[in-house]
């Protein structure tokens, strides 16, 4: 009886829980944005709109942002934006899956706490957009430089804004070549490794680290891009014979490379390698001759529907996309901007996109939707190494 009673009470409590879990919450409408009257004061209409929006934004006083980009980005943007407009940025950081879980649960409960998402495109395309939480970013554009095709053609890589989906909810504000291949220069002489094919040489057997290709992240993306777009899947069958070590932690991978434990690392974030290089480690990022892929990394932006601070969010988005905003962002992120007029000083030249070269796109909606299959393929292929 002593044992039975707790079990019965527990089961009863579970039933009550199940019954309360069933119905989804209804959403609550957030306040609608007001229209923008046009008056004649010698100013152009966009300037009038900007003034009005800025005034309203300063009343709102804050922009709520969720990001996967890291603390340096938070600090750089908060300081500079506040200094210019006297509006605070409340930036919460997290990993993609955690960030999405929070936002989606908040929305279901009728809580609208986020204005802007700034981070990796995969989270947007696989979670936020399918949940219907986004608005087309163009609705926030006030400054003419984002609406005039001639100005866009001059300022932006590829001559256009790099939209990552068909409904223009997700814009890539960072665009860089991600070779994801780095070597220890004490163990690999210049010219010994020129591309992916060279890694299949038996002398590199047991000397390669691979970032976990079975999960979302740099390793998973790298596996998918190389297999589906650059080298073909048989490349990875050959790579398996090289007995690579699979590691989840990016930082540990680069540390091992720097210590000389391994000679080559694949599927690594170039900004980590850069950091070690700057500290004096004998490392180098290589651009494989077979081609690199284009990515935004943690540099894509979206505008949430029913934003709690719509005017402040508009001011922020417009500012972030200007040369000034992009300069702060790119420097903090450590990766080139999608704008051509933003300095790449201090960044590894292998990251900078070369004009005229064709790059495989790795962060658009189409690729994101294929990734689940890529992860399953990686699991099957690398199962012997993961046993």
């Amino acid at each position, binding site marked *: 009886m002593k044992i039975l009673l707790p079990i019965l009470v527990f089961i009863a409590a579970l039933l009550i829980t199940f019954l309360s*879990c069933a119905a989804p919450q209804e959403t609550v409408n957030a306040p609608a944005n007001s229209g923008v009257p046009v008056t004649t004061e010698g100013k152009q209409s966009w300037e009038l709109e900007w003034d009005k929006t800025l005034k309203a934004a300063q009343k709102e006083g804050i922009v709520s942002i969720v990001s996967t980009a*890291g603390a340096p980005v938070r600090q750089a943007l908060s300081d500079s934006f506040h200094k210019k407009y006297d509006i605070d940025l409340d930036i919460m950081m997290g990993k*993609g899956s955690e960030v*999405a879980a929070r936002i989606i649960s908040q929305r279901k409960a009728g809580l609208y706490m986020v204005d802007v998402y700034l981070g990796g495109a995969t989270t947007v395309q696989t979670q936020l957009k399918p949940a219907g939480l986004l608005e087309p970013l163009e609705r926030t554009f006030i400054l003419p430089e984002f609406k005039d095709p001639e100005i866009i053609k001059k300022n932006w890589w590829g001559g256009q804004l790099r939209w990552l989906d068909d409904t223009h909810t997700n814009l890539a504000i960072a665009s860089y070549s991600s070779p994801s291949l780095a070597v220890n220069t004490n163990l690999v002489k210049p010219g010994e490794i020129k591309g992916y094919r060279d890694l299949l040489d038996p002398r590199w057997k047991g000397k390669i680290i691979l970032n976990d290709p079975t999960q979302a992240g740099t390793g998973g993306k790298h596996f998918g891009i190389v297999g589906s777009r650059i080298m073909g899947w048989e490349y990875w069958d050959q790579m398996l014979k090289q007995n690579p070590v699979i590691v989840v932690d990016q930082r540990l991978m680069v540390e091992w490379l720097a*210590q000389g434990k391994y000679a080559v690392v694949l599927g690594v974030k170039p900004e980590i390698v850069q950091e070690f290089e700057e500290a*004096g480690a004998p490392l180098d990022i290589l651009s494989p001759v077979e081609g690199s892929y284009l990515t935004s990394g943690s540099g894509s932006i979206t505008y949430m529907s029913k934003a709690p601070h719509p005017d402040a969010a508009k001011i922020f988005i417009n500012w972030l996309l200007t040369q000034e905003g992009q300069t702060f962002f790119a420097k903090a992120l450590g990766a080139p901007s999608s704008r051509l007029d933003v300095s790449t000083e201090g960044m590894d030249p292998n990251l900078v996109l070369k004009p005229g070269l064709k790059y495989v796109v790795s962060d658009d909606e189409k690729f994101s939707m294929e990734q689940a299959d890529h992860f399953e393929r990686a699991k099957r292929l690398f199962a012997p190494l993961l*046993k």
Partner: protein
Amino acid sequence: MRSPFQLSTLVMIILLSVLAFMTVYPLGMIVFGSFRSSAPGDPGFWTLAGYREAFSDPSIIKAMWTTLFIGIARTVITMITAVFICWIVVRTDTPFKGGFEFLFWIGFFLPALPMTMGWILLMDPDYGFINRLWRSLPFLQNAGPLMNIYSYAGIIWAHIGISTSIRVIMFAPAFRNMDASLEESARMSGESNIGALIKITFPLLIPAIMGATLLGFIRSMEAFEVELLLGMPAKIFVFATKVYDLLRWEPPKYPPAMALSMVFMLLVFAIVFLNRWIVGSRQYVTVSGRGFLQRPIMLGKWKWATFSFCALYLAIFTFLPMTFLVIGTFMKISGLFNVPDPWSMRHWTAVLSDPLLLPSLKNSFIIGLAAGILGSIFFSIISYISIRTKLRGKNVVEFMSWLPWAVPGILLALGLLWVFLGGIVPMKFIYGTVYILIIAQIITEIPTGTRVFSGTMIQLGKELEESSRVLGASWIRTFRSIVVPILAPTFVAVGVLTFLSALRSIQTVVLLYSGKSRTLSILMLEHYIGLSPEKGMVIGVMITFIVIVVALIARAFGLKVGMKN
């Protein structure tokens, strides 16, 4: 005429309702989710697809066995070590024993991941400092590594320091409350000191030891961060890694993750019944109405052996990794010694000039203090009702107090998120505030706090309360006037434990915090996400410093109040 509705019944109803909301409800979300095709609240249908996907992974069985093996090995080693250490620092005349006990508190709160990075620097088979030193000895240049951190032994080693420390913290109050006359009687009968430890002390402390040990075993089953870092290069995979992997997917695979966590739940239920069966209705009273003797055991010259043991243990498991942690914060890249000019103050400068530092510190203190004080009171009530009363429903209360650890921490955090945002009791109005973090922190510490209290409450003799009630005091008055003063050291211990756990808690708060309620631990996490672990380590050092200060204050306060007979 007897009132049909007594105060005790009302208290029990309130307690059961609160506990059910705090523990059964979030777990119910997880159980519910394991049989659905989508997350709770999303449109879906009933299905076993989550279970099929979870258990179709052929490596799952091996991961389960690995988890059990590491968990058992780690638990047994740390339990034996902790019992011996507690005996030394609480029951004997070992020099500096108070200082040693204090240092174990510090050891528990050292942040796990930076500590593990420190062990890698020391014990990597190729470039680890210890192994390079080993190979520099004559005739050993081509020898294999002395210690390899990427192995089963390495994983267990990386956990020993922190696991032993938490057991020492949890066992110590019970050791302290033991009547020395029991051991003296044994020695007068010809038993040695060690014999008295094994035949008298240890059996009487079984409830405290077993409760904490079983808790520790459950926690070891959930551990994955250290296992992920150290296990993957050696192809060692544990069960919790599989759960974590499923939640890392975008979108996360909730149904199979929840299905896997059902294994944890069944394990916890089995452990709860095992604990009850072992403890049973035996007597473990060591503090009775006739007062109790607190006299240290005189070890003679052996006290220097015990002193050396504690000093060496702390040097290896606390000072060594702590030293590397601090050194790492002053390097450009932690651990990268073989570069020109590896040193830098920039990480400290960046952290100290971050405008979020002070607000985060303030939030951490508020949450920690509130959770520590309110949590202590709440856990003591749960424990008292479970152990000291005959109220109907007390077994249900005790059972529910285990539940927060019935699923891995990250799933419990998800469960709490869904409860607070979408549950039957509206809590949206406090979502994003520190209040919700205080509640969440109390919930996650229920198993620990309650077990620590239970371990000492079971040692109290009945005559203490009976005397009070015979004189007309209610059970609340008795609790307040008799039980609380005797258990004051335990209150302090649990309060401080809860405070310090809140200080470094990440999983509990990561889904519930907002910009206004950001804590120090979240700030640390943000630096790790930003691939700047050195700044995270700076915050880790700050947290350690706060731990030292708080432990010093608590030690002084707690020892004064609780030692009156």
